[in-house]
């Protein structure tokens, strides 16, 4: 109703015509990791339910999470979790009005990528 000028307004630049940049790629990865974590989250909830139900059910859930495929999913999720955590931290910093300069934003982008890989490696070694 308020849109009397529909169709004649300028379009904002969108994904298809943007050259990928560190800031855009790290942003897209934040979305992908955050939503993909549903898979491992449900697996972990299933693991808890199985542990609370019976030894047989637990054996199945344990096998599901520690098999080759399960381990691959968990390791990938571990990186996704650290990545999303660091990227979220970056968003909290941005929301407070800090680090919005392109140079700082790019530095934080690399910090998220490298930091998430390092933290995943540390977690795998400790756990």
């Amino acid at each position: 109703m308020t849109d009397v000028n529909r169709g004649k307004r300028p379009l904002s630049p969108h994904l298809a015509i943007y050259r990928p940049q560190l800031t855009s790629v790290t942003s897209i990865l934040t979305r992908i990791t955050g939503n993909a974590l549903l898979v491992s989250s449900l697996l972990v909830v299933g693991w808890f339910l199985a542990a609370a139900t019976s030894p047989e059910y637990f054996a199945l859930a344990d096998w599901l999470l520690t098999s080759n495929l399960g381990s691959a999913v968990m390791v990938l999720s571990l990186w996704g979790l650290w990545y999303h955590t660091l990227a979220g931290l970056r968003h909290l910093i941005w929301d407070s009005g800090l680090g919005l300069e392109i140079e700082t934003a790019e530095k934080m982008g690399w910090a998220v990528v490298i930091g998430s890989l390092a933290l995943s490696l540390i977690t795998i070694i400790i756990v």
Partner: protein
Amino acid sequence: MRYLTDRKRAIGAGSAKTGTAHFWAMKVSSVGLLILIPLFLFTFGPRLGEPHDVVLAYFERPFPAIVAALTITVSFLHFKDGVQVLIEDYVHGRVQKLLIVGMICVSYGAIATGLFAIARLAL
């Protein structure tokens, strides 16, 4: 229509609506998860692959049980809000509504299942 002033037509049609509450809810849950995720990783992680009786004994302890319960709850509340933004960006109309309702159901279902399981392990 044309008797309305521009201002009158614009009032109430802002893009935010309940977006502020949504944004704030995600901020709060993200700060919570910033603390919970490392705690959960280093309590739950080492138990993965352990025998059943060890897992049972471990989650009988208050700290790991409370961390796990909080992590599952806050994670899925955060997911519920986050996935709604994802859906709203790419899907519209009836399918959008169905997907959002479905994902809210999945989120609360996972929270209830997780809390039930942990309560049973801990008590």
